[in-house]
């Protein structure tokens, strides 16, 4: 039976602390994993493995992250963000610590793949943003999603030099243990987010329902399905570009230094893009913003490939790509909130995110496979352009209102 929830008084929370601590948790979760590339050489050399072995562990990590995200979200929805982040931090830290002593491929897959993947799912921005959605007033939600995404992205700037410093100063094994220690710092940061479910001001327009009901209703909502299909493309683009853009640039005659810096340019502009997307999502239509965003990705990719690839075009393209990089996240998260409400948003965003991770896998795999078969990135590049147009088409018809299955009859919609 479904009934409307009764409003409860807003809890006593410190807004500044909630935002800052939430952002820092997301930063640590993203940052620690972004250092994994630094460990490729020392770990593989110490154990006599090929680099592909380490890459496989990281691929497994991403797959586990994607598959675990809906479950992590469901736990967060059911038992609260606090508990999930505490458990996630322990698992994440255990993964890093175990990786330090991994002397077999099985242990590497278990630590760097399974445990880290689970830990990331339980501590990443998805869980943080769901917490923000419940604690932050509706008019500030989109902004809070933007700042959380941007802070996550900044994790690379903090942890890349730190990870390198740890490796240089103390060796790769101690570096992993120090990273594990920094992940445990989440224990302190999660305290301001510790608000009991009953203490959170509830949305009167939301229905009380079970997890399975929420999943079934989301699956029956055309807008939710379209959003999920569209987010697949984001994963495809991001993963393909992360892995294949630098080698592609070098193949096209761009200096290896600039190819490497292009990655940095994407990262820098991504922060601007993610934060701005949060602001835009709070003021304008999220679905139109996403439609334009995917359209812009396709146009940028097509122009870059059609025009001569020069150092200037590389820099401009990297900047555009950065602006359009993770800017999909605040808008997508915002739409999940609008369509399905905040009650099960962590889990439902997890479902959308799973589609993203499938796209990620295909982006990397297909990019490599087609390159090996044809010797060029042409086919997969144009596939990316076409998928961008497909995503734009998917987002256009989304209804930016609470889905009927999630709203109280006659209730106002947020």
């Amino acid at each position, binding site marked *: 039976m479904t009934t409307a929830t009764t409003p409860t008084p807003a809890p006593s929370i410190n*807004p500044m602390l909630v935002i800052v601590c939430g952002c820092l948790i997301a930063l640590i979760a993203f940052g620690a994993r972004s250092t994994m*590339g630094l460990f490729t*050489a020392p770990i593989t050399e110490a154990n006599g493995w090929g680099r592909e072995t380490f890459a496989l562990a990281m691929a497994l990590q991403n797959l586990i992250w994607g598959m675990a995200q809906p479950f992590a979200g469901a736990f967060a929805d059911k038992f609260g963000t606090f508990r999930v982040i505490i458990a996630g931090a322990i698992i994440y830290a255990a993964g890093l610590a175990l990786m330090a002593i991994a002397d077999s491929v099985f242990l590497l897959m278990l630590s760097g793949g399974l445990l880290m993947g689970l830990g990331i799912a339980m501590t990443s921005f998805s869980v943080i943003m769901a917490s923000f959605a419940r604690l932050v007033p509706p008019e*500030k939600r989109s902004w809070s999603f933007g700042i959380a995404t941007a802070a996550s992205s900044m994790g690379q700037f903090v942890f890349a030099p730190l990870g390198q*410093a740890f490796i240089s100063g103390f060796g790769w094994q101690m570096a992993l243990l120090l990273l594990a220690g920094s992940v445990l710092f989440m224990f302190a940061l999660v305290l301001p987010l510790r608000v009991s479910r009953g203490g959170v001001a509830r949305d009167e327009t939301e229905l009380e329902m079970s997890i399975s009901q929420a999943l079934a209703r989301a699956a029956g909502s055309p807008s939710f399905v379209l959003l999920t299909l569209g987010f697949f493309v984001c994963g495809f683009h991001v993963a393909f570009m992360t892995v294949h853009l630098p080698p592609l640039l070098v193949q096209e005659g761009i200096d290896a230094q600039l190819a490497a810096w292009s990655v940095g340019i994407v990262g820098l502009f*991504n922060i601007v893009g993610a934060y701005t997307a949060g602001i835009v999502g709070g003021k304008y239509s999220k679905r139109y913003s996403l439609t334009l965003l995917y359209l812009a990705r396709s146009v940028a990719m097509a122009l870059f490939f059609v025009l001569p690839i020069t150092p200037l075009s590389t820099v401009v393209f990297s900047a555009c790509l950065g602006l359009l990089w993770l800017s999909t996240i605040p808008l997508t998260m915002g739409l999940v909130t609008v369509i399905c409400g905040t009650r099960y948003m962590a889990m439902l965003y997890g479902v959308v995110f799973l589609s993203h991770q499938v796209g990620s896998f295909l982006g990397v795999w297909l990019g490599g496979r087609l390159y090996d078969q044809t010797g060029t990135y042409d086919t997969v590049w144009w596939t990316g352009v076409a998928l961008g147009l497909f995503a734009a088409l998917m987002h256009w018809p989304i209804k930016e209102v609470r889905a009927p299955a999630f709203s109280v009859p006659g209730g106002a919609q947020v």
Partner: protein
Amino acid sequence: MKWPGHGTAGALFAAILLVSLAGFALFMHLGRVTPERSGTMLAVFPPSMTETEVFANIIEAGGRPVRPTWMPGTWVTYGDTAGYAGRLEAHGAIGAYTSASFLPQLAGCFAFVDAKAVQLFTLDQ
């Protein structure tokens, strides 16, 4: 209840960048090799120095350039006599580092460590 806005975001991002700079300074400190060291190492010269100057300074320090890296002014070099690291610094290097790889990292939902990409960016010899 007043919720924070752009000011808080700006302050937070600035603080994160400061921590990032501190991390980089820590790396510069911890990654440095002792002046007596010889062998293969990264020589970091001021980015303002031309490649010809960098090349000449490595030779004068008693080493040989192995290959440039993606970081400006940073070369993988080799010197087989003791004190090579110290001589590099005496010849204008900011420092000599053993550090293997300083990869540009992209925070994304997919941080796939591709062997091909790692090979491209690694400062390893």
